[in-house]
């Protein structure tokens, strides 16, 4: 997180530290736009190839385990709630509750990744990975489907990991009272990031698991 807002960083004379939460929030939203566009490029590819290889995509998507996908969706949605609750808690100065909610969120993120790990290793053990034996037998549409599947869920997984790092830093900040009930913009920004991770998954889930 680099969203610090010491505008007058050189405080040698005026002596006051300028904190601008509004600016910090605006920067975070701009950053989220860039993330959306990053995934936007992928969604564009998905749309174009879905149109071109409708049949191959249907066959490939039928292979996916939508139960694990659904469980992961529930996990992420719950974690979004807990992050929001932790912000509410810190605003009411309930430090312990805020910390507990963040730990719960981290746990959810970890659960999501564990599920993802099992999913990926299942596919890989079946020989479905770029250049894998099973994939080479498949049609072009299926190859592209799995290519996009690995890239998009992989990129999303990376974002989950980054989000967890942010939240871990926030836990440290709350413990050190850097984040308090009057200064919680950093936590709110981390929360916004976590919601983004959630929102992207909400689109990935139907596109890869349900549309077949």
């Amino acid at each position, binding site marked *: 997180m680099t969203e610090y807002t010491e505008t007058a960083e050189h405080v040698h004379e005026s002596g006051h530290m300028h904190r601008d939460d509004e600016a910090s929030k605006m920067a975070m939203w701009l950053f989220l736009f860039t993330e959306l566009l990053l995934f936007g490029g992928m969604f564009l590819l998905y749309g174009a190839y879905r149109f071109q290889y409708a049949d191959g995509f249907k066959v490939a998507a039928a292979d996916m385990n939508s139960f694990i996908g659904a469980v992961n969706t529930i996990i992420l949605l719950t974690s979004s709630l807990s992050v929001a609750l932790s912000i509410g808690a810190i605003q009411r100065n309930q430090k312990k509750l805020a910390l507990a909610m963040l730990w719960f969120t981290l746990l959810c993120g970890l659960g999501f990744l564990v599920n993802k790990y099992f999913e990926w290793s299942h596919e890989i053990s079946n020989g479905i990975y770029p250049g894998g034996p099973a994939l080479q037998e498949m049609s072009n549409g299926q190859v592209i489907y799995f290519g996009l599947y690995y*890239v998009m869920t992989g990129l999303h997984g990376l974002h989950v990991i980054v989000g967890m790092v942010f939240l871990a830093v926030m836990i440290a900040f709350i413990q050190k009272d850097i984040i308090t009930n009057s200064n919680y913009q950093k936590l709110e920004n981390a929360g916004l990031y976590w919601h983004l991770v959630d929102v992207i998954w909400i689109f990935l889930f139907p596109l890869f698991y349900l549309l077949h």
Partner: protein
Amino acid sequence: MANEILAREPNYLEYQGKHKGIAGWLLTLDHKRIGLMYLMAIMVFFFVAMTLGVLMRLEMLTPGETIMKPQTYNSVFTLHGVIMVFLFIIPAIPAVFGNFFLPIQLGAKDVAFPRLNLFSWYLYILGAILAVASLFSGSGAADTGWTFYVPYSIRSAQNVTMTTMAAFVLGFSSIVTGLNFVVTIHRLRAPGMTWFRMPLFAWGLYATSWIQVLATPVIGITLALIMLERFLGIGVFDPALGGDPILYQHLFWIYSHPAVYIMILPAMGVVSEILPTFARKDIFGYKQIAISSLGIAFIGYLVWGHHMFVSGMSDASRIVFSLLTFLVAIPTGVKIFNWVATLYKASIKFSAPFYYVLAFIFIFSIGGLTGLVLGALATDIHVTDTYFVVAHFHYVMFGGMGIMFFATMHYWFPKMFGKMYSEKIAIIACTQIIIGFNMLYFPMFIMGYMGMPRRYYDYLPQFQGWHILSTVGSWILVTGIVFMFGNLLYALLKGPKAPDNPWGGTTLEWRIKGLPTLENFEEIPVVTGGPYVHDRPTYIMHPSKEIQHTNGDAKKAEKEGVSH
């Protein structure tokens, strides 16, 4: 009294903070020092890429092999493109002069996020190192052209991965700078500085920054996919696995066309600064110029398809993209007409920066009009992938952004370094640059029209006369550029002290006495009028001392502006 206080406070070059010497620069959070660090890095890469360009021209002096093999030529034009586009043209004006002057022009102490600002400089350096390292590592520099078109970029045995990685990192640096500027412009305008009292340079940067934030991520993911494609073979762009190379071209140009406006909008912003200063009157059509920057940025998003007219798009989409391309000419025309109208009946002062701006208007107009030839479907098919295209984009990019970079250097040099250069030599160098430039690139229009393809190291003997003319032009141009920088360098070392406001500029940076100090202003100024008003002061530099003497205007202005 104010003078005495200012005399005691060290300027930004002398200031000794927590870190001394070189660390005082490498760890600085001062937007002005970061701007100068960008300037130094950017100049190095400009000269590297310029040298590569000269070598290419030298190779084209005679048909067949002159000084290099075809494979080397491929790598040279790729690196010339990558370095010029990603390391010079895109960051030059925003990262150097935007960093230095945006906060000052807004009446702020710094950008909104100083640490992020320094971070983006390090990203820039990291990307630059990767780009240069790709030259000497692996199996040699990329040979795909700066567009990295698939499937060749996937198959090429050269070190394409590292070059795309460099472009990826540089894109991230560009996003961070854009984000910082958007927030700075929203949050840090001085009291009384309403949106329509902002200098037009700030408006240009504002439009640019939005493009940087909203377009760059698309190239990020596209280049990341190239890397993944090379490592893993995921198939999304590989026709052998069912991927569609045309989709790559779409994604590439969704960023890279708006990027053209990242390059030119800040330059246009500086034109709007320099003209009213030397015309010594208010700019004509302030609001139209400001809004047209946003208009160009917006329409610029919707025209990427014109790079792909011969790639096999449907007729319907080609017609739509062609029409939209013509629409960009409208806001651009608005700017040109307003600039010319500013000069009408003005008492013009012919100084060096103004001379460069005139060169810009002349050269850029040729570039812009030949752009319409390329935007029209029928003529584009005739000249696609010929020297005509090469000539066109050098007229708009080098003739537009490059010449304006020189103009900007000459305009703000006295405020950045406190020294004055020889205007006479600057004008002679400018004349030489104009002659060399046109001699270098204009024959390319003719050759392209006659069918000389771009990116070939060899050619038919019938083109040799034009190639010789063009190569000689490159020598004139380069000596002109060296002459110009030599003049500035000499001024930096031995030039006389510059007056506070040598040109009679009206924006905030010219109200500062001497070089800017660390926090730019002793007190945040209050703005009471537009940026280019020549006949009365529109800034109150020391509101706490002066405000009781004014007629209440300032207080009103303070309420209108953003409060902190």
